[in-house]
C-alpha cells in the first residue's frame, strides 16, 4: 500500500519558487493499478518521482508498505528503492551494456549472489518474452523491446510497487497495447501495485482500476476509473474522457432533429438488457439513435447513447422515468421543438 500524505514539492528557480506538487494526499491500495492523468506541467511527473525520492519532497510523507520514505537516507533509502521498480518514457537503459548486463545491474544492486544472477536474468527475460535478446545491445532493439527490458530490470528484485513514468508515451499504439497487457499480467500474477502517470486517457481506460486527475499540482478528482468515466465531476475529467469516448454530433444533424434529444447512460450489465427497446415498445414513442457506443472499462460495459425521441410529452416523460427505474441515467440534451 502506498500512502501519500499532504505531499508538496516546490522548485526554486531564478524567478522564484514554483509549485510542482501542491498538498496531494492519495491512498493506493495493494495490488491496484493506479493512473494519474494530467496535461504536461500538471505535476504528475514530479509526483511519481517523489514516490521513490528521485525528487525530494518539500513537505509531506510517502509511506510505502508502512515505511515513511521521506525519513530514509543513504543505505536505507537504497534498500527501500530495491522494492520500488520504475520504468521510464525513454527507457534509460545503459547503452554500452547488453540486455542481460542491464538486468544483472539491478540484481547486483541488491547484492544477489553471483551464481544466481544468470538464472534470474533468464527468468526475467522469459517473463517479458525477450529470452532471445539476452546478449544484444539496447541500440539493436525496438522501442517496445527496450521497454520490456526496462520492465525486466524494474522487476528484478521482486518489488512490491512499480512506477511507470509515461512508460508508453514514446511507443506506437500497437506496442503501447502490448506493453499495457504485459503490465496488467505482471499486476495480476505478481500482485505488484502499479502507479502510472500518463496524458493518454486510453492507457488509463485499458488497465487502471483507479485514477486521479491532476491540475496545477493538485489532485482535482479521484475515484475508480469506471465511476469517473461514467460520471465525471470536473470539466477537466470530462475533457480527458472526451479524448477517448467522444459524442460530438454535427450541428446540421442536430438542427434536423424535431424531437427531444436524450443522453442515456447505462452502467454495468444493464447495458445489455435491451432497456431502450423495451421502453420504445412500451410507451409507444419513436426513437432514433444519433450516436452511441458501449465501452468496456475494467471489463465492465459502459453504454452511452444519444437518441432523439418523438411522441407525446407525457409518454416521453414516463419513458424517461422508466429507463431511470431500470438503472439508466438520462440527461436531456435538448427539449423538443
Amino acid at each position, binding site marked *: 500500500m502506498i500512502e501519500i500524505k499532504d505531499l508538496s514539492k516546490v522548485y526554486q528557480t531564478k524567478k522564484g519558487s514554483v509549485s510542482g506538487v501542491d498538498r496531494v494526499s492519495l491512498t493506493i491500495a495493494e495490488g491496484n493499478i493506479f493512473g494519474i492523468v494530467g496535461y504536461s506541467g500538471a505535476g504528475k511527473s514530479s509526483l511519481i518521482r517523489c514516490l*521513490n525520492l*528521485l525528487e525530494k519532497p518539500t513537505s509531506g510523507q510517502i509511506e510505502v508498505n508502512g515505511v515513511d520514505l521521506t525519513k530514509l537516507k543513504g543505505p536505507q533509502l*537504497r*534498500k*527501500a*528503492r*530495491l522494492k*520500488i521498480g*520504475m520504468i*521510464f518514457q*525513454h527507457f*534509460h*537503459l*545503459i*547503452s*554500452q*551494456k547488453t540486455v542481460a548486463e542491464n538486468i544483472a*545491474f*539491478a540484481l*547486483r*544492486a*541488491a547484492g544477489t549472489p553471483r551464481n544466481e544472477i544468470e538464472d534470474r536474468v533468464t527468468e526475467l527475460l522469459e517473463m517479458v518474452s525477450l529470452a532471445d535478446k539476452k546478449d544484444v*545491445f539496447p*541500440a539493436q532493439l525496438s522501442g517496445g523491446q527496450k521497454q520490456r527490458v*526496462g520492465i525486466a*530490470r*524494474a522487476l*528484478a*528484485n521482486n518489488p512490491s510497487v512499480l*512506477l511507470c513514468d509515461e512508460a508508453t508515451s514514446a511507443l506506437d499504439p500497437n506496442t503501447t497495447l502490448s506493453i499495457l497487457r504485459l503490465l496488467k499480467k505482471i499486476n495480476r500474477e505478481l500482485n505488484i501495485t502499479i502507479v502510472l502517470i500518463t496524458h493518454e486517457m486510453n492507457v488509463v481506460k485499458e488497465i487502471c482500476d483507479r485514477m486521479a486527475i491532476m491540475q496545477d499540482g493538485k489532485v482535482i478528482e479521484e475515484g475508480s476509473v469506471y465511476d469517473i468515466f461514467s460520471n465525471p465531476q470536473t470539466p477537466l475529467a470530462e475533457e480527458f474522457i472526451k479524448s477517448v469516448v467522444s459524442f460530438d454530433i454535427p450541428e446540421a444533424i442536430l438542427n434536423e432533429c424535431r424531437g427531444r434529444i436524450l443522453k442515456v447512460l447505462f452502467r454495468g450489465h444493464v447495458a445489455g438488457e435491451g432497456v431502450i427497446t423495451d421502453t420504445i415498445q412500451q410507451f409507444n414513442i419513436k426513437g432514433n439513435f444519433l450516436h452511441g457506443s458501449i465501452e468496456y472499462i475494467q471489463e465492465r460495459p459502459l453504454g452511452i447513447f444519444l437518441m432523439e425521441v418523438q411522441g407525446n410529452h407525457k409518454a416521453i416523460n414516463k419513458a424517461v422515468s422508466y429507463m431511470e427505474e431500470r438503472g439508466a441515467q438520462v440527461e436531456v440534451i435538448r427539449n423538443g421543438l
Partner: protein
Amino acid sequence: MGFEFSRMIELMPEIWVAFGQTLYMIGISLAVAIILGLPLGVLLFVTDRGLFLENRIIQSSFGFVINMVRSIPFIILLVALIPLTDLIVGRTIGPAAASVSLSVAAIPFFARIVESALREIDKGVIEAAVAVGATPWMIIKDVLLPEAKTSIVQGVTLTIISLVAYSAMAGVVGGGGIGDLAIRFGYYRYDNTIMIVTVVILIILVQLIQQIGDWTSKAIDKR
C-alpha cells in the same frame, strides 16, 4: 641552407634518442593523468548539483584548484615546479624531471575532459540506476564509465596530442624530446634539415595518435 639528406643521416642517432624521450615523457605523464585525472573528473561530476553525491564545497574547491593550475602558462609551471620535481625524482633536469611538470599540467586537463564526457551522458540513465537502488560506486563503475568510455577515449587522444605539444617546451629543463630538438637545432641554429625532419615526425605522430584514438573509440562503442 635547405634540406640535406646526408645531414639527416648524420643526425639519425640524435633524432632517435629524442623520439624515445618524447615517448617517455608522454607515457609517464599520460599514465599519471589517467590515474589521478580520471577519479578527479568523476569526483567533479558526481558532486555537482542534482547528482547523487552532490557536495558544493568539494565541487567548488576542487574546481578552483583545477582552474588555477590550468591558468598557469606551461613554461612557467615548468620552472615553478622545480622544487617539487627535486622532491619527487631527486633531480631537476632530464626527461623524468620534465615528466613531473607535464603530469601536473595533464591531470587537471584530463579531469576536465572526463567531467565533460560524463556530462554528455543522458541524465535519465543515471537516474534509472539511482531508482534501482544502486550504490554510488556501482553507478560510477557500471553506468558513468561505460557510458562515457567513447568520449573518454577521445579525451585520451586529445590529451596525448596536447602532451606532444607541451613536451616541446621540456627543453627548458633539459627534458629533451623531438620538440626540443626542433627548437634547439632547427630554430636557434637555422638547421632546416632538423626542422623539417622533426616537424614531419611530429605530424606523423599526431596523425597516428588521432587515427588510433578514433578507431578505438569507434570499436568500443555499442550504441
